[in-house]
């Protein structure tokens, strides 16, 4: 009641502010004396003004939402370059610095163009269960009017460019596993195919209208707020396949291959953390309370995970390293991604903490146990973190945060709807399966056409010189 009164006062205030001139004239026509004898013409005038007011309120909300979503799109792009490029760039040996950075940057060019040509349409056009259609190919019909299927308050163009940034970073994450030995031509072909075969369908299944994993009305409603399955499981699992398919780097694991500059990685990780606010809070697709909730969950998830990894490492090695802390933060950001818009702050910390410890275990123990050379731990962080995040989303999602299944319907285990964990599991398994099979097929094709792995001589010389003809650090100059 009190809220309603406040709201109406606020609306009146807005009205007066928005229409200064007519408002000043208003007392003349609708003074108390003449109010009782209001003619039909005056009441029409009032209803016209109300309609106008309504329009203005909508426009004000649209402006706020659009400002936040364009900002978020820019933040997500910043995660790829320079965020991920620096994070990965610092972790490789000096001779491969530019090559790994270029693999991220190339996605900013390549995937952006593919997205505009047909990718957006395949992910968000039509309403098929598996994949979209060509209705928005070449961005046909993507203009300043909102797309009511996805985001009713922002221009369709804003929604399209925001989703583009997700498509850009996802393949770039894979390059962490194949780092220091993947040739550039192979990277370009592989990523092009991967984008069409794995990313676009998966994005449609989980987020697209009619998608069979879509939380709103899909056959198996899978909660994935910002890309736990679509971005992190898909890229992480594909990364593992790449690492296994390519084999180890020459000299691994006997030869020491320490990161050449943790300073670069440190800056990159901090940029990723900041960019992730656009990634997760932006996934509310509006500048609203849900965005604030996702922002807080994201931050606390990252913080708790940094602590989780550091403590685990402190116990194990007697020291908490900078690399451990930043790796933990990234693992937490990954795990909180599917959950961000569904969980309250305390569960967000639990998810982060769990991811920090689990991912530490994955990159130290599990990797050593199986002996695969996931060079920069794309699988250990994104595959493992994405999986645990997706499952815990089913546990901790609450209707009070996001009533996605309807105003009074329970969402996750915390609401008593434990079946949601099963739906999450279906989503996880589909993402795993799709990434596994798709990546194997694509790798075979890539190997036949351009080859995937650099030859021994190129690898020894370093990919900077052999693939790009330049050096990251030209010390003689």
């Amino acid at each position, binding site marked *: 009641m009190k809220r309603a009164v406040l709201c109406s006062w606020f609306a009146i205030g807005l009205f007066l502010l928005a229409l200064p001139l007519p408002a000043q004239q208003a007392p003349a026509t609708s003074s108390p004396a003449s109010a009782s004898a209001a003619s039909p013409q005056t009441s029409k005038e009032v209803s016209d003004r109300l309609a106008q007011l309504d329009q203005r309120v909508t426009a004000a909300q649209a402006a706020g939402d659009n400002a936040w979503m364009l900002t978020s799109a820019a933040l997500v792009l910043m995660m790829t370059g320079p965020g991920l490029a620096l994070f990965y760039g610092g972790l490789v040996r000096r001779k491969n610095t530019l090559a790994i950075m270029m693999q991220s940057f190339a996605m900013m060019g390549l995937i952006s163009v593919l997205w505009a040509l047909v990718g957006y349409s395949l992910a968000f056009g039509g309403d098929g269960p598996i994949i979209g259609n060509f209705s928005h190919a070449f961005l046909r019909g993507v203009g300043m009017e909102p797309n009511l299927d996805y985001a009713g308050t922002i221009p369709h163009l804003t929604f399209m460019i925001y989703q583009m940034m997700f498509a850009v970073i996802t393949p770039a994450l894979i390059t962490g596993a194949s780092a220091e030995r993947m040739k550039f031509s192979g990277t370009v072909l592989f990523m092009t195919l991967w984008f069409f075969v794995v990313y676009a369908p998966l994005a449609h299944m989980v987020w697209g209208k009619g998608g069979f994993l879509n939380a709103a009305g899909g056959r198996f409603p899978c909660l994935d707020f910002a890309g736990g399955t679509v971005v992190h499981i898909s890229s992480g699992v594909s990364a593992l396949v790449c690492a296994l398919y390519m084999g180890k780097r020459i000299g691994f*694991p006997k030869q*020491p*291959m*320490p*990161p050449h500059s943790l300073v670069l990685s440190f800056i990159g990780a901090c940029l990723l953390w900041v960019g992730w606010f656009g990634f997760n809070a932006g996934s509310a697709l509006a500048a609203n309370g849900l965005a604030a909730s996702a922002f807080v969950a994201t931050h606390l998830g990252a913080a708790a995970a940094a602590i989780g990894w550091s403590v685990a490492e402190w116990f*194990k*090695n007697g*020291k908490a*390293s900078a*690399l*451990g802390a930043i*790796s933990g933060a990234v693992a937490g950001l990954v795990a909180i991604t599917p959950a961000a818009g569904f969980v309250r702050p305390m569960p967000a910390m639990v998810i982060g903490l769990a991811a920090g410890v689990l991912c*530490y275990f994955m*990159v*130290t*123990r599990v*990797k*050593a146990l199986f002996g695969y050379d996931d060079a920069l*731990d794309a699988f250990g962080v994104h595959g493992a973190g994405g999986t645990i995040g997706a499952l815990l989303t089913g546990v901790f999602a609450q209707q009070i945060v996001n009533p996605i299944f309807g105003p009074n319907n329970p969402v996750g285990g915390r609401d008593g709807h434990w079946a949601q964990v099963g739906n999450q599991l279906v989503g996880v398994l589909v993402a795993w399966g799709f990434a596994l099979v798709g990546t194997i097929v694509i790798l075979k094709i890539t190997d036949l056409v351009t080859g995937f792995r650099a030859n021994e001589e190129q690898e020894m010389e370093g990919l900077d010189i052999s693939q790009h003809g330049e050096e990251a650090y030209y010390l003689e100059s």
Partner: protein
Amino acid sequence: MMKLEAIIQPSRFESVKDALHEVGIEGMTVTEVRGHGRQKGHTEVYRGREYTVDLLPKIKLEMVLPDKLVNTVVDTILKTAKTGKIGDGKIFISRVEEAIRIRNEERGESAL
């Protein structure tokens, strides 16, 4: 003429250099080097992978001295470079046949 090479801890370099200036040493050549004698290296851990770093950073000083200055210099270095722990480094002394100043072709001790 004698050549003196001293390999010392990087953390002692500034003190050694200042002390040598005080006893009148005007020229020296300094290199950042890596190596080890009896000192064991240390272990670094990156995401669970352990690396033993056994080549440690050191500073190498090289000086060619008139015979009469050698003892003073050795004493100065011993006094200022010593921390008492393994890894303090070593001094090597050898005889030098000839020294030539490139600018004016002076030879012998006057070229130093």
